[in-house]
């Protein structure tokens, strides 16, 4: 039913990705460029710092050697004087401790702080021991590294202490040397003297000595130089540690990456919100579209059986409903489900929308949804329900109109049949009367008396039938004009029925008429109405009961009513026809019971007279299987309407 429109979706996810990629690329480029710039800048600066650092290192080494030499030179056999000099140095210089040994045995350890725990081990270091021997041998200060001081790399400055007058010859020195002074300096302390500028973060320094290497490996040394360490020459390399690469580029790259991710996430969220909004607009658009198409579709037919299935399926699809039910209200306002699509679940949300037409509720639209319906959807359903209400009302009006047309058509057919029957009745009766009259006139003399009497009797009977037919037609005309009036009064029903039955006997001339009346029964009725009722009762029995059967007229008291009934031995009136036989022009359409006589208005006239007299009419089965038609008259005035509004 609905015409769908295709909407172009935004390309936000790919746009966000593109933005992120651009940012990443840009940050990469910036990182590379900044890295290069930083590298260029750092190399120049760092080279200067490295040179200064190496110079400081050399100076520190020279100072340390000088102090140790000084301590050793000032030494004498007096250990106390050596200790005093050593204490002076350890308090103000880089040398952390002095160890005084003699013949490889620690004589004394001097530190500013007094800590001595690991110094004994240090003195036993084979490198130091070898340096001691060399110092004693050549009488000069030796510098060795690395040695271990409390687990950290250190240097040892080994200087021989002699008496001033006793160092001319080796032998003399060997014989007279009182001790060896060993100055210990941690490499870190030497490298980073207090209050001096340090290298850049990540910088590495490696010192290569004759005994080994101090410091971590240096990647791409910025500067390599040599420093003197007493009688030794050390090579010093300064550069960046392998893990200490400048991170400016990486920082830029990482920042770019985070920025790209943030941009991507932000754009994706924005896209999702926009898409959600677009989806909502799309749904509303389709719902409006559906309201429009529903309006057109609901006007295309006046047949609910054609409209409702399509309507229910479309509404269910558009609103994502589990089921759609359409109920129509009857004249009492009770709802009856006329169509259902889908199957509701217990957990579904139920929404009832009344179908209103002005002040009247013509039905109800009940929908079940597994998801709660938002207010806009409910409003849309209300709009659709209003359209459905119009369609339902129009269909009902059309249906009623069709029924009215069918009833009128049926009535028209009945009237045509009625006219044909009346014509036939009149023509037959008048032909018989005229024919018998002519026979009597033309063949009177030649005709025996018995034949003459028979013809006269037949003329009388046909005249009676004619009179009854004419009376019925006149009654019918008066009833149609609503001009028929009855004037009930108190009368002895038995007497009047007895009298009328005699006069109406020609109506059942082929039957045996039995009249059984209670002379005490009094009714509140119009004698004309009683006459017309009895005439039609007898006429009906005469038409439908087979000849030579008995027709019984009874008058009796029945409760507070005066009952007049006529029973015959005909086929009876089927239960399903007992209401319809009182409809004007209706005749039993049964091959066994149909008769050509009668206009089909007798029982309807009977009913009208009975209604106007306040009498009740009923049809039952007669004891012999025929029809028993009962008319119960009131025995006293029944309200004020009996005689006034006729």
């Amino acid at each position, binding site marked *: 039913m609905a015409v769908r429109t295709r909407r172009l979706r935004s390309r936000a996810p790919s746009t966000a990705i593109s933005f992120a990629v651009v940012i990443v690329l840009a940050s990469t480029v910036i990182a590379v460029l900044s890295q290069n710039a930083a590298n260029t800048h750092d190399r120049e600066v760092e080279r200067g710092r490295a040179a200064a650092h190496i110079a400081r290192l050399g100076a520190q080494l020279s100072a340390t050697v000088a102090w140790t030499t000084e301590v050793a030179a000032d030494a004498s056999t007096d250990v106390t004087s050596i200790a005093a000099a050593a204490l002076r140095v350890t308090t103000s210089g880089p040398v952390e401790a002095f160890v005084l040994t003699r013949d490889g045995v620690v004589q004394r350890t001097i530190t500013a702080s007094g800590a001595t725990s690991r110094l004994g081990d240090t003195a036993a270091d084979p490198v130091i021991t070898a340096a001691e021997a060399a110092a004693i041998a050549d009488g000069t200060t030796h510098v060795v590294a690395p040695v271990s001081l409390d687990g950290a790399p250190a240097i040892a400055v080994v200087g021989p202490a002699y008496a001033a007058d006793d160092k001319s010859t080796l032998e003399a020195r060997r014989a007279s040397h009182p001790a060896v002074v060993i100055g210990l300096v941690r490499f870190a302390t030497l490298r980073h003297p207090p209050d001096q500028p340090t290298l850049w973060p990540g910088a590495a320094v490696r010192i290569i000595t004759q005994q080994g290497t101090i410091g971590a490996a240096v990647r791409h040394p910025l500067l390599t130089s040599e420093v003197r360490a007493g009688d030794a020459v050390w090579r010093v390399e300064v550069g960046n540690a392998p893990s200490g690469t400048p991170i400016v580029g990486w920082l830029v790259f990482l920042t770019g990456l985070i920025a790209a991710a943030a941009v991507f996430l932000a754009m994706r969220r924005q896209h999702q919100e926009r898409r959600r909004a677009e989806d909502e607009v799309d749904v509303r658009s389709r719902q409006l579209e559906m309201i429009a198409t529903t309006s057109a579709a609901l006007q295309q037919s006046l047949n609910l059986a054609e409209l409702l299935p399509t309507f229910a399926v479309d509404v269910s699809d558009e609103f994502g409903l589990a089921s759609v039910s359409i109920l129509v209200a009857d004249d009492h306002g009770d709802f009856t489900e006329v169509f259902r699509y889908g199957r509701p679940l217990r957990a579904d949300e139920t929404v009832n929308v009344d179908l209103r037409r002005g002040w009247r509720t013509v039905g109800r639209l009940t929908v079940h949804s597994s998801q709660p319906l938002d207010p806009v959807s409910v409003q849309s359903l209300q709009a659709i329900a209003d359209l459905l209400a119009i369609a339902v009302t129009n269909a009902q009006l059309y249906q009623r109109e069709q029924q009215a047309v069918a009833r009128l058509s049926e009535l028209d057919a009945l009237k045509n049949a009625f006219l044909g029957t009346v*014509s036939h009745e009149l*023509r*037959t009766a008048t032909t*018989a009367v005229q*024919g018998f009259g002519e026979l009597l006139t033309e*063949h009177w003399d030649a005709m025996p008396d018995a034949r003459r009497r028979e013809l006269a009797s*037949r003329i009388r009977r046909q005249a009676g039938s004619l009179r009854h037919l004419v009376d019925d037609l006149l009654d019918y005309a008066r009833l149609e004009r609503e001009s028929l009036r009855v004037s009930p009064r108190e009368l002895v029903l038995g007497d009047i029925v007895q009298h009328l039955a005699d006069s109406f006997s020609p109506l059942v001339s082929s039957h045996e008429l039995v009249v059984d009346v209670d002379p005490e029964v009094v009714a509140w009725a119009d004698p004309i109405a009683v006459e017309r009722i009895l005439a039609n009762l007898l006429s009906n029995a005469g038409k439908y009961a087979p000849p030579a059967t008995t027709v019984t007229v009874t008058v009796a008291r029945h409760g507070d009513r005066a009952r007049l009934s006529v029973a015959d031995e005909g086929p009876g009136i089927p239960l399903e026809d007992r209401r319809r036989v009182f409809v004007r022009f209706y005749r039993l359409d049964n091959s066994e019971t149909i008769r*050509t006589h009668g206009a089909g208005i007798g029982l309807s006239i009977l009913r009208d007279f009975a209604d106007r007299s306040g009498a009740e009419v009923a049809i039952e089965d007669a004891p012999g299987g025929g029809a028993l038609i009962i008319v119960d008259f009131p025995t006293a005035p029944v309200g004020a309407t009996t005689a006034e509004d006729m």
Partner: protein
Amino acid sequence: MGVAPRSNRALIVDDDDDMRFLLRVLIEAANEGLAVAGEARTAQEAFEQWRTQEPDVVVLDNRMPDCSGLDVAAEMLAERPDQSIILFTAFLDDETIARAEALGVRACLSKDRYDELPAALWQYGPAA
């Protein structure tokens, strides 16, 4: 009309007693070879009488309790195409006459012209 036959027997089919009686008296009064072969008040009785009496002419009312006279005529003519039938009915309209002629009914006579029936019986009775 030629030489009159020695007899002309008619079957009267009508649901009204008085009409049957009138036609019988008319036919008997006309005499001169006209006779009533039988009477029937329904279509069923008509076929029974028709087959047993084999009348020369069937005088057939159109409005009967169990079916129409034209239906009876159609069945009789299907069985005996040369059967002479006169449709004798109270209400004759053009449609009824056309249908009767199409079936092969010899004549249609309105009931108010009952006095013409004896002549019609001669006219449409058995050939001389």
